[in-house]
């Protein structure tokens, strides 16, 4: 907490002097106003999503007024009738596996690039970056055929393997940055203590890079969760097997052809966002609390 909060404490501690007091009050008002603006910016559309998901009987179409019209939970019922919980399970498994694989493989590679002697690092980084740059839509036809032959269609492996592969570049870049930011003295201290390079990595460096690791983990998880193109091609239809959440939502139908079920779509969106926020809340604490004062001051 100390690293983060040191900056803001001083303002509050000063005792009352007229000018200082009103300046402080002014600052508090400014901060509150700023917070209000930020909340509005981030959450207003989400509020719209919630209100629209609660509107039943076409009131979403009939009136743009958020507080108008019959409300009910029918849309949520519709969403779960379509096996949406299975989609949630599929997405969780695929995103989870991707995160674990990416973090493990990416940490190793990131540390190697940041700290270990390797030849041609800039070239390596460029190559790694290049992997994630090719337009996925053009990669999909050959991959589809290959996956068909290997029997990887409609499987978790068929999704998390390419997800890992395409998310590794970002992971490696993030983790390399964090490993590079750790002062060398700590590493050398560990080695003087008699650890092998691997022990130094696992016991000392990795915990110190925790903020970066957790930041990378959230980013990987959310990217894998929201990925659409590959999921739509490799596991398009069967929620019982591997169909993920974004694909399922994109296939919601209305009661008749042409009708777009905006109520169901927004309801599904709300259902999907809430666990994501929980995941983000859990992980963000780790990002902030990652570096504890002691190891740095040493």
């Amino acid at each position, binding site marked *: 907490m100390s690293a983060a909060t040191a900056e803001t404490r001083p303002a509050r501690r000063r005792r009352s002097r007229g000018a200082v007091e009103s300046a402080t009050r002014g600052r508090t008002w400014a901060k509150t106003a700023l917070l209000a603006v930020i909340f509005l910016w981030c959450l207003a559309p989400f509020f719209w999503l919630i209100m629209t998901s609660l509107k039943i009987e076409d009131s979403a179409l*009939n009136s743009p007024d958020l507080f108008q019209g019959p409300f009910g939970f029918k849309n949520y019922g519709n969403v779960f009738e379509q096996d949406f919980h299975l989609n949630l399970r599929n997405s969780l*498994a695929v995103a*989870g596996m991707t995160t674990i694989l990416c973090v493990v493989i990416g940490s190793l590679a990131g540390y190697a690039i940041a700290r270990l002697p390797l030849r041609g690092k800039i070239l390596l980084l460029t190559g790694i970056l290049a992997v994630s740059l090719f337009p996925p839509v053009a990669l999909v036809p050959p991959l589809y055929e290959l996956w068909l032959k290997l029997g990887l269609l409609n499987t978790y492996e068929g999704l998390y393997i390419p997800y890992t592969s395409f998310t590794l570049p970002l992971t490696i870049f993030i983790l390399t940055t964090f490993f590079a930011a750790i002062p060398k003295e700590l590493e050398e201290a560990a080695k003087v203590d008699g650890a092998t390079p691997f022990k130094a990595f696992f016991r*000392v460096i990795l915990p110190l890079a925790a903020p970066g690791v957790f930041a990378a983990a959230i980013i990987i998880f959310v990217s894998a969760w929201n990925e659409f193109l590959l999921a739509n091609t490799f596991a398009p*239809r069967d929620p019982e097997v591997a169909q993920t959440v974004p694909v399922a939502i994109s296939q919601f*139908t209305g009661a008749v052809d042409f009708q777009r079920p905006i109520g169901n779509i927004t309801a599904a969106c709300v259902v999907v966002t809430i666990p994501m926020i929980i995941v983000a809340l859990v992980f963000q604490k780790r990002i902030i609390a990652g570096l504890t004062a002691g190891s740095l001051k040493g």
Partner: protein
Amino acid sequence: MRRTTTLGKWMIAAAAGSLVVAAACTPSSDDDGGGGDEGGGQLTWAIGGAEAQPAGVDQKIADLWNEQNPDNPITIEVLPDEADQQREQQVNVLQSGSDEFDVLGMDVIWTGEYSQNGWLESLEDVRDQIEPEVLEGAFTSAQWGGELWAAPFNTNAGFLYYRTDLVDQPPETWDELCQIAEQVGQQEDIGGLIGQGFKYEGFVVNWLEYYWSAGGELYNDDQSEVLFDPEIATQTTEFMQNAMDDGCFAPGFNTATEEEGRAAFQSGKAVFMRNWPYAYQLIQDEGVPQVAKNFDIAPLPTFTGEGTISALGGFNNAVSAYSSNKDAAKEFVVWAATDPEVQKMLATVASVPPVLTSVYDELQSDPDMALLSEVLPDAKPRPPAPTWNTISVEMQDALFPAYNGDGDPAEASDTVADAFNESVEE
């Protein structure tokens, strides 16, 4: 000490991770893996949309077939709601030569493309069973290059929806419609005509309805010659441009698809709407009371004032060339097109326009079916050319900016003419 605590957290993370790994083996599905090998009579019908869902009419049709044909049971493979996505998924399976799909539910404009790629089984040998029974326009959309590739399943045509409390008589010409739209719109402070003007296939449908109703044509009967008339096309685009500027078109015309149009009309923000029949029931059930009680449907106007023209939509059923059960599949598609019970079910259960002409005689009591029987004989299909998508995209690219005042209508017409001419040069 700190190190062990952090390490402890890592251990917990690793344990949780291994749980995820254990859970991350793909669950085995209830039905046979992939549904790929279906010798012995099983049929798979790949169709999407609202009616393909378990509660939809397609399922009831499948059940009916299964009752009558226990040796060749058919199951529905539910495709996505949007036509583009349905096509993507069908193409993926067909390109790989898989026998996963036996019967394909195809949008009427895909016939040429699918047949050109060799994905469809010719239905010439059952032509005589189908042709006399179904609507002419629908039947045309199932052919390409003079050969029959699919059996029509259901159809669709455009209606003019209008407010009966604001308009006494539905207009018979577009100019009349614009006059009324602007006048009444100003009076009531609402929009005029809302259609589908967003940059997608629906815009091409709307534009073609104006173009055809001005006397324009696209191809001759066997699609060997291009009859596209750039002059009429320019007039059409100019009409749309003026309609945008003068307020004949309601605000948001150029960003509206079917649902936005319905939203505008059923909330009372437009005097007229061009839309498919699906909106009829929905407006009655869910529109604001003022509109729900005071609207009606009519044939689309023309420029000449004579007759009516609308674009044809709908779906056809085709047999996959890779199917391992072609005979049964053929029987199914013919049955779905010509069996009176099936076609009647489409109309009565789902309000989906059938293709069997005889059914319409029994449905006259239903207003939208009655209007359909009036309008369908003159409805024109978009040519299901193999390159229709290319032509459509070129039309959108050229005509959309033109009618929005961002391009020259005459130039746009020339670009479109080139696109059509290229399509017969192959």
